[in-house]
């Protein structure tokens, strides 16, 4: 008789609770679901023109995904609708059985990357009202993300001021690919507002926004598209640090979501080395880049790195810092990480408490 055990058995004695830093609520019937939250002026615009389609998860996707709806095959609600669109089913399949104490919503939509800025801003506002009405207002565990259009800085700040005091929003959703790299000074007023409200900038991978997908051009396959998220996140860090954003806004928190973390030590070492030699080009950057990365930037865990020797993950986290990682599942997407089996190596109770809950509590001031 063949016997196989899971890589790491769940500990039945300890009830694991987690703060899940990446959950995707989805529009049940596409953008038409936003109509109740959209000024009538934009209803006809939506029907007549529709959104600019060069981004993920708005009816079309840049590269064909591995599974329908980008989702776990078992995440389609039996009541109908697409994965992530039914809160009752999300509770049954994820929030309750996986011990989710708080869930950070990541609504992915076309608003932040519209070139028609007014339309984009209206879509962002509608996404925020939709989160309040249909998600955070319905389940106390969920926290929204203030969706903004960063390339219209005034509109973005107006939206942050409009809803920023509402504690059901825990962060600002900011796409990693804006018109300019995100450290560019044009976006600084947004960071000033974020720091003022103590709302972290949450950067979830979200399509290419018209930029070439990789530094080497357009690749052939989804597997390459998936990997390109690493390059994007590296560019984000480089831009934030070398433009001096964290010198200007030392309390600003940036969370990089779903871009992996295995590459962080290599980037950090290289940036520090270059900074030591070329510091005079960027004199506003007073400290080695690693110091800003270790004080202002966090990373979510999913999709987790799975090194050939599982213990290598511990060395990796030692280098990055145990206080830098935030557990996430990416529910209901196909590359979901289950909290019971995500770490293929045994963690101490203290390490688990940090990764599954403690670090998130430190970053997000609006939990509980």
């Amino acid at each position, binding site marked *: 008789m063949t016997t*196989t055990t*899971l890589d790491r058995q769940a500990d039945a004695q300890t009830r694991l609770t987690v703060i899940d830093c990446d959950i995707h609520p989805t529009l049940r019937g596409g953008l038409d679901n936003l109509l109740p939250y959209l000024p009538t002026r934009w209803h006809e615009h939506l029907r007549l023109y529709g959104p600019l389609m060069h981004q993920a998860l708005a009816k079309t996707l840049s590269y064909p995904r591995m*599974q329908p709806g980008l989702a776990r*095959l078992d995440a389609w609600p039996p009541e109908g609708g697409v994965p992530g669109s039914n809160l009752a089913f999300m509770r049954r399949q994820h929030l309750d059985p996986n011990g989710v104490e708080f869930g950070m919503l990541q609504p992915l939509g076309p608003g932040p990357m519209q070139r028609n800025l007014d339309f984009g801003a209206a879509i962002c506002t509608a996404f925020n009202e939709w989160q309040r009405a249909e998600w955070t207002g319905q389940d106390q565990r969920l926290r929204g993300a203030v969706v903004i259009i960063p390339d219209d800085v005034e509109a973005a700040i107006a939206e942050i001021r409009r809803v920023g005091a509402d504690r059901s929003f825990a962060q600002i959703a900011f796409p990693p690919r804006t018109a300019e790299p995100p450290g560019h000074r044009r976006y600084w007023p947004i960071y000033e507002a974020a720091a003022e409200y103590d709302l972290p900038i949450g950067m979830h991978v979200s399509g290419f926004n018209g930029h070439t997908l990789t530094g080497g051009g357009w690749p052939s396959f989804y597997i390459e598209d998936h990997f390109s998220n690493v390059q994007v996140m590296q560019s984000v860090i480089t831009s934030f640090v070398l433009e001096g954003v964290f010198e200007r806004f030392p309390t600003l928190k940036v969370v990089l979501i779903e871009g992996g973390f295995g590459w962080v030590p290599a980037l950090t070492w290289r940036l520090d080395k270059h900074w030591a030699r070329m510091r005079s080009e960027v004199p506003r950057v007073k400290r080695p880049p690693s110091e800003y990365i270790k004080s202002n930037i966090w990373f979510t865990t999913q999709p987790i790195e799975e090194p050939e020797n599982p213990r290598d993950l511990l060395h990796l986290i030692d280098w990055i810092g145990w206080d830098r990682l935030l557990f996430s599942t990416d529910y209901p997407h196909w590359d979901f*990480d*289950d909290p019971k089996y995500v770490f293929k190596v045994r963690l101490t109770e203290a390490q688990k408490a940090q990764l599954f809950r403690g670090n998130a509590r430190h970053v997000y001031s609006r939990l509980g």
Partner: protein
Amino acid sequence: MAKHVVAAIAELAPGGVKVVTVNGREIGLFNLGGDYFALLNRCPHAGAALCDGQVMGLALSDEPGTYRLDRPGEMIRCPWHGWEYDIRTGQSWCDPRKVRVPRFDVARETGAEIVKGPYIAETFPVMIEHDYLVVDM
């Protein structure tokens, strides 16, 4: 070990999948052209219900631009991360981490272009007794 009657033959057409519960454990039954197999309904990688996945073949390529589908209907693909398991043996396939190891020289070892993965889904013997499928576990 005990024998459990789990289904009537007529309930499982060729190509069919049926999930049954035996001693509190979910078992997926498969009919591959009249041969019957049983797998634990649990992916050894991260615990997903394996039988919610799709039954597929193995996509293979001997050189750029040529493709073939081998063993159609004999692999089940996990509904989460897409791990592929041989329904006949429960063996996982296509572990990209192992492809780098020299002893799996894909160019010279016939049939070795796909390398066995690290996981094995639990299998159970299935017997036919008087038009019923019987699992021994």
